[in-house]
């Protein structure tokens, strides 16, 4: 029985209508942001430039796609329907009557659904890994820039060590199936995931040292929530079984954090060396504030502009890294719907079938482009002040 097709125009309409929850959410969020942009500080200023609006729009589009993935995608990303092997875009799946909007891949899975579900993997790992890298980079970069001297020499040497590694080699060494049998990924996770807890504890301690009523509550929350997530992520021993991460994903996560935190470290160190010569830092020193108070409550808030811009660019770069991992088949499961793996699978068959390759490539490119545009317009807006 030959497979039936719907026309190209219907495919476009169908794709647009499948994204309906995304359009609604986009309209609400963008409309609200635009209406209240005067009150939204830096985020509101983004809506003053065309580039900023496009950047925010693309990022939000993928965010909502990831959130509503189950509603948007017509098929299970892993389900195989043998008759649909390598079908062209618009082929109708006989049982459900729905069509494979972007065609089927060589294992007869729906390319459209895989692209939609792929966004989930990227949008969970990339921002989270960037967040951890920021925590590590800030916690180490502040003292290195502020104290200078031996601490700076040692930490900078270590950061340069990691930066001298070509990323791809680092991944080949750190993200192999063999390394899962050794304690190395867990040890690294144990060290990296400690940084946010240390960061927030010191943050609250320096501020509320003399106000025990606030201090104990904030410290308690930090330690309980942090410790809970820590147990779940590093030891997979979350008592409530909510926080859980696949050993594979933990390995990727750790490798990505490891690869990108030295970059954050260098930026923070440079910013701190610049800012510590300002008058308000001297004033705080004269008041007798502790060094960590000055670093966390005087210097860090004044370094936030460049750090936010860097974080945006870094999420994009992490997305590219995840794609690279998928492209080389490192870490992620071979049937995983993430964009990198999909590009790898499709690029080997480009001679015979083109359609499975295009959706994941365009998805990845557009998401990174959105983040880069966002970063660019954030930089421009913060330079205006």
């Amino acid at each position, binding site marked *: 029985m030959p497979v039936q097709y719907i026309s190209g125009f219907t495919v476009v309409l169908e794709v647009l209508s499948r994204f309906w929850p995304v359009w609604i959410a986009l309209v609400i969020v963008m409309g609200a942001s635009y209406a209240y942009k005067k009150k939204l500080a830096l985020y509101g200023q983004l809506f003053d430039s065309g580039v900023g609006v496009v950047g925010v729009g693309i990022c939000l589009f993928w965010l909502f796609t990831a959130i509503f993935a189950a509603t948007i995608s017509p098929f299970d990303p892993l389900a195989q329907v043998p008759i649909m092997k390598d079908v062209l875009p618009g082929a109708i799946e006989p049982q459900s009557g729905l069509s494979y909007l972007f065609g089927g891949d060589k294992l007869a899975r729906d390319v459209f659904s895989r692209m939609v579900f792929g966004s989930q993997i990227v949008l969970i790992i990339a921002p989270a890994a960037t967040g951890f890298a920021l925590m590590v980079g800030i916690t180490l970069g502040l003292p290195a820039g502020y104290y200078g001297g031996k601490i700076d020499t040692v930490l900078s040497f270590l950061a340069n060590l990691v930066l001298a590694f070509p990323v791809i080699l680092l991944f080949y060494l750190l993200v192999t199936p063999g390394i899962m049998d050794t304690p190395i990924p867990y040890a690294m996770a144990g060290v990296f995931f400690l940084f946010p807890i240390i960061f927030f504890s010191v943050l609250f301690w320096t501020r509320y040292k003399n106000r025990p009523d606030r201090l104990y509550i904030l410290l308690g929350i930090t330690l309980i929530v942090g410790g809970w997530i820590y147990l779940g992520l590093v030891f997979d021993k979350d008592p409530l079984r909510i926080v859980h991460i696949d050993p594979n994903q933990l390995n990727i996560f750790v490798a990505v954090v490891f690869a990108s935190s030295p970059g954050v470290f260098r930026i923070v160190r440079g910013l701190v060396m610049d800012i510590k010569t300002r008058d308000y830092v001297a004033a705080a020193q004269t008041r007798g504030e502790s060094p960590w108070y000055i670093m966390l409550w005087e210097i860090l808030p004044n370094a936030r502009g460049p750090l936010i811009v860097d974080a945006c660019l870094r999420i994009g770069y992490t997305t590219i890294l995840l794609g*690279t991992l998928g492209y080389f088949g490192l870490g992620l499961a071979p049937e995983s719907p993430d964009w990198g793996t999909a590009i790898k699978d499709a690029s080997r068959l480009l001679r015979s079938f083109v359609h499975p390759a295009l959706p994941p490539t365009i998805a990845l490119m557009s998401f990174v482009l959105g983040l880069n545009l966002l970063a660019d317009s954030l930089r421009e807006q913060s330079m205006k002040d």
Partner: protein
Amino acid sequence: MLSFVIRRLGTMALTMLCLTMVVFFLINLEPNLKKLAISQTEMHTSAEQLENWLVNHGYRQNFFVRYGQWLGVVPKQPVTDPATGKPAQRFSFCNDPVVPTFAGVLEGDFGCSTKFKASVASKLFPALGATGILMFWVLAVMVPISLLIGILAGMREGSRTDRVLSVASIASTATPEYVSGVIFTVIFASWLGLLNGSAASASQGITFYNFTLPVMTLAIYGIGYIARMTRASMVEVMTQQYIRTARLKGLSFGSVVIKHALRNALIAPFTVIMLQFPWLLTGVVIVEVMFRYQGFGYTLVEAAGNNDIDLLLGCSLVSVFIVLITQLISDVGYAFLNPRIRVQ
């Protein structure tokens, strides 16, 4: 200047020592050795035989002894042939010594590739040559284009040309090699049929037909970044007093840009281009795998995939060396180009 360079070279040597030790440690983890033993012996070998193979080939010696042997500060011992009890070559395919000798990296011996059954030097250097050709063409395409885009954009900040070129360069930095490679192959090889989607034949002879796609793919990611940096540098120079003076003296805009602005605006991009090499290295790996070009990146992937210890160490050494030497060149070159900078 000389003492600065010497100090930097010292740090470089220390960094390379640390990094190779880390790589050495990671490659020699137990699961990786197991994998190597399995791939090097016949099918269905018992665990005992695997262990024997590892012991016989010297993989069970002390970690530091083996690292020292690789480095060339500890003599390499010949293995004992279990059948005759006499000293024998470790790997017959690359003339390993039968008497204890110092034969490590410091002596110029990179070891033995278990995957290709040949000495590392005989695999690695031809591959580096092939990648060198690729790199040459990439730089020949990337540098002029990106400088031109950057200068045109930065010449008049905020103009329409600037906006268009800036967005184009942002788009190009958002396109990693595995994305642009696929898109270019689809357009130029599958649809238009103008170019070859594989560079496998480039080892025999480079033609426009088989070499354009890899070069294009590799260049596009760097173009955006270098163009952005050039633009920023150009914008800064164009606001300087001496540019205004030159304009007020009545020089034409074109001659101010070419004679006064350009020379100062190109100092920063030089650094950026030099620091772009480590990124190109990752790109080379992706592009060579994608277009099946047998160069350094292809060798690295083969070595890593088959846990070929000596070859992978050789590759790491080369890539770390490239990263560090380009950093040094960029620092020294910056000091030469910009007389305001003095290195202590």
